[in-house]
């Protein structure tokens, strides 16, 4: 269980998050959506313990603010929006960086399974720096998966914190990566993902938190949150949600009425 109460974050004197409360359950994909600069990454970084915040954030019963990095690392992996790499590691070596202590015996098989999972089985020997942006992002996801490979261990759910996991990917790999998140949740793990693509969110998420101007406007199922008025208000443009019973909600930007306004 991820539970955050009254989280406030400020950069210097500028307050970015104004006392938001957020929760996520294991077994679910929880999406955080909202316009650029609304505070999604800031919220995620507070929840992963990267930023000082006021309020309380608790993951699996452990207070994020006081937890040791290795204890957190044992139960959650984090995929940042972008990850620089300082030295010429190979793809296999980057994935190995995520492995926690005590997994040495399974090391090789975990690395190749994680790489195969993100469709990069053939890339193990390539240098990371010589990959395309989308490929690099998938290598980083493989690293995160290798870190918390089992969605549940010793009755504790493990967690994936993903900041825009599919933003730089083609549509095929977007679907593939979202499916990985879906499977992880279906096997009992928890997934918290910052998303921009509302259609993918509607397809794959169980729960969505809509962030605007440092507030969470609403957190509920996509079918509840994705309403014309709420989305149009948050994103400051006209959006129309279609909800055919067969497929669930999908969205179209509504060009005509945008021009009309």
């Amino acid at each position, binding site marked *: 269980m991820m539970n955050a109460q009254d989280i406030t974050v400020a950069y210097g004197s500028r307050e970015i998050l104004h006392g938001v409360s957020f929760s996520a359950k294991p077994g679910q994909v929880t999406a955080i959506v909202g316009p650029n600069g609304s505070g999604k990454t800031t919220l995620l970084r507070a929840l992963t313990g990267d930023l000082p915040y006021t309020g309380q954030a608790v993951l699996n019963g452990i207070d994020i603010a006081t937890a040791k990095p290795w204890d957190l*690392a044992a139960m959650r*992996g*984090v995929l940042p929006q972008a990850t620089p790499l300082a030295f010429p*590691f190979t793809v296999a*070596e980057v994935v190995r*960086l*995520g492995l926690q202590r005590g997994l040495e015996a399974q090391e090789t098989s975990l690395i190749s399974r994680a790489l195969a999972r993100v469709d990069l089985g053939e890339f193990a020997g390539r240098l990371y720096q010589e990959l395309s942006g989308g490929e690099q992002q998938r290598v980083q996801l493989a690293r995160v998966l290798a870190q918390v490979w089992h969605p549940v261990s010793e009755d504790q759910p493990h967690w994936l914190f993903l900041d825009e996991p599919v933003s730089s990917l083609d549509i095929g790999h977007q679907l593939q990566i979202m499916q990985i998140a879906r499977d992880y949740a279906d096997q009992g793990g928890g997934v918290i993902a910052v998303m921009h693509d509302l259609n993918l969110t509607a397809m794959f998420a169980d729960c969505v938190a809509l962030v605007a101007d440092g507030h969470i406007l609403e957190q509920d199922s996509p079918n509840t949150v994705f309403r014309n008025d709420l989305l149009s208000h948050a994103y400051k443009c006209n959006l129309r949600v279609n909800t055919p019973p067969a497929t669930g909600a999908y969205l179209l930007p509504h060009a005509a009425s945008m021009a009309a306004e």
Partner: protein
Amino acid sequence: MTVLTQDAPQILGDRQSNARLLMGALVVMLCITSMASLAVGASGTSLWQSLLDLAMGRDLSLRDRVVLWDIRAPRTFMGILVGAALAMSGAVMQGLFRNPLADPGIVGVSSGAGLGAIMAIVLGGLLPAAITNQIGFYLVPLAAFFGGWASTMLLYRVSTRKGRTSVATMLLAGIALGALTGALSGILVYIADDAQLRDLTFWGMGSLAGATWAKLFAAAPLMFLSMAVAPFLARSLNGLALGEAAASHIGIPVQRMKNIAILTVAGATGAAVAVSGGIGFVGIVVPHLLRLMVGPDHRYLLINSGLLGAALLLMADVVSRTIIAPAELPIGIVTAVLGGPFFLWILLRQRGILDL
């Protein structure tokens, strides 16, 4: 290229077993260069003849014993320790600053350590006798350690903002730091009296010549300690390659490991500088060569750097002793002639990546 070992199945891109093989090769190389270093010298004493004599149970002449045991042996051990310490501090520092151009010599840490050592010699007399009696001969290496520590801290503060190191700032701050500490050292040398000047020459700021057991024993504990700690930083330095946030996400106590890394660099560099002065470029050439050969995994890079650094410094020392025999070329000149162009080459190769 990839070599299989029986127990650990390998996947492509895993360079661990290559790194282990290289480690073995470097141990052999270090043994050979150590023998060469013991065998070569101006006096004409033959290591082989002496070993043969010893094996046959014959006594060595006093002259041969002095040459081998009191002149060459401490110099060889000093070369091993200093080379290993400089190369390892280079590797740790590059991992800490997340960039391959960080080197204790280039960015002014060595001159900071040198200033510490010179201060200890020239101003050491001003310390209360109680303190100097306690630490005695260790005063100079310890002062060099503090000098190195202060400059590393300062450099890190200046060039790193929010966990990102600016290469340009680091190099420029290093130049300023080097100039400042160099000037202060110059002033101290200027006000030093004759006895202190003799001490300064005794510590031999700038070469391995004049290595003695006494000097070795004064500096060895600090070097050993730092080099023994360094390998424990390997996993953390690997993680730090992903940036500070990601390093903490995979479980690394970033702040603590950074402090330890800075102490390690200061200890190894400080002690090396105290006994040999600023021998440049070892710390940058060695780790870079190793990264090209078997990759940047610090679990092997740090130890291999120590081995290769020791071997290369011994070789440079042999060259410096023989090339204009019977005179001696300062070893710093040899490493600079070889290392300077190498540094420029790295700089040109990395220019695109480093955004310089």
